[in-house]
């Protein structure tokens, strides 16, 4: 979706504050949100791709105003309700509705280390055979899906060159929308600065992006 989360190259978003900031969390609630999101992910009721899509769906003005963990919280609550794990009524009263028993067991503390160590690998054996090769010139498709996509706006329609093949990976655009994994080749593509930014490009600069085969078309 073409919302403000797709920020690459935008102006007007303020200055970067490079001041060293060793604090991991700036308030204890941030740590609790991190933990709630990770513990909820363990249910397998949604994928990280789906969670990312729900963060992107936060209305643009809120997205810009929210801190990182505020976005996490908003998307978590949204998914909990949409997936019927909590009701709006329960959220407003703060009390479990006895008529709606829990549908998924809690991640126990003893399983945390194993879950975090396992992660969620996205590489898949098999899948569609790659149709593009390293060294080939490719154009990022000028697609504007209304759902989740990992094809940033700033590369759409731009030409680059494949620099590596990462293997076959779950296609996040499809997986986020509940359309299955659709594993396909994931390529590393180099775009020259001038191709992306025209006269505003800095000298000797390039951007590398990992794009799936469905994001790309060969340049003939």
């Amino acid at each position, binding site marked *: 979706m073409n919302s403000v989360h797709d920020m690459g190259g935008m102006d007007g978003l303020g200055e970067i504050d490079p001041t060293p900031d060793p604090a991991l969390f700036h308030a204890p609630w941030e740590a609790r949100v*991190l*933990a*709630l999101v990770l513990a909820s992910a363990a249910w397998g009721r949604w994928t990280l791709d789906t969670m990312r899509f729900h963060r992107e769906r936060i209305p643009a003005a809120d997205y810009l105003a929210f801190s990182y963990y505020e976005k996490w919280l908003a998307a978590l609550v949204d998914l909990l309700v949409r997936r019927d794990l909590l009701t709006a009524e329960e959220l407003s009263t703060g*009390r479990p509705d006895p008529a709606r028993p829990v549908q*998924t067991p*809690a991640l126990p503390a003893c399983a945390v280390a194993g879950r975090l160590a396992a992660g969620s690998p996205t*590489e898949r054996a098999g899948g569609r055979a790659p149709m593009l090769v390293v060294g080939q010139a490719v154009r990022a498709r000028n697609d504007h899906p209304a759902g989740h996509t990992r094809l940033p706006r700033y590369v759409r329609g731009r030409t680059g060159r494949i620099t590596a093949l990462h293997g076959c990976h779950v296609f*996040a655009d499809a997986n986020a929308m509940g359309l299955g994994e659709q594993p396909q080749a994931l390529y590393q593509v180099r775009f020259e600065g001038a191709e992306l930014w025209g006269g505003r490009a800095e000298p000797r*600069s390039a*951007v590398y992006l990992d794009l799936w085969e469905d994001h790309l078309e060969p340049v003939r």
Partner: protein
Amino acid sequence: MPHSQDPGPQDEATGTRPQEHDHRHDHDHDHDHTVPSAIALRVRALETLMVDKGLVDPAALDAIIETYETRIGPRNGARVVARAWTDPAYLDRLRRDATAAIAELGYGGRQGEHMRVVENTPQVHNLVVCTLCSCYPWSVLGLPPTWYKSSAYRARAVIAPREVLAGFGVMLPDTVEVRVWDSTAEIRYLVLPERPAGTEGWSEDRLADLVTRDSMIGVARLAPPTGAAA
């Protein structure tokens, strides 16, 4: 300072009671922690509901936080870098299959499932960003710093990397190519900084102490150690 009408029991989310502010906190920033913020109260209410409902185990939540506070952080990445600097065979494995080579040191898992290492040289400087969210190699660097997650960094790093680097004090001459890695898919990138001069013969442990988080994101270069010949 504003105080709530009824301070109530200790706020588990903020860990504060209004009357305890002065002797419980010795931090030097100026946030007002005397009254739990609206969001702290919301998070506490959500956690309580989810615990009461049996959806989450509070001990598991504590274990997750403890993992990122004590076990998964930039020290992991620093060990990878120091090994790569001192062991050419390891560097070779890191170039061929970074995920496996990093796993040799015991690091992997969430947000480090598929790793690539990019090497800084006198001719090439690498910088990592995620313009679509804030993807970051958690397994080797821990949780991302605030500036990395900021809209400004996500917006600027791809269009004006030299300007961004200058803001961090890294002045790149135009002769050095700058490569920006926008990690919007599921591959996570670790920058292998250049080994500083004056560290010849150093042990892996001593080298690892030199390696900073920012140098592994690409917004810093490592200076020669104090006292070492340039």
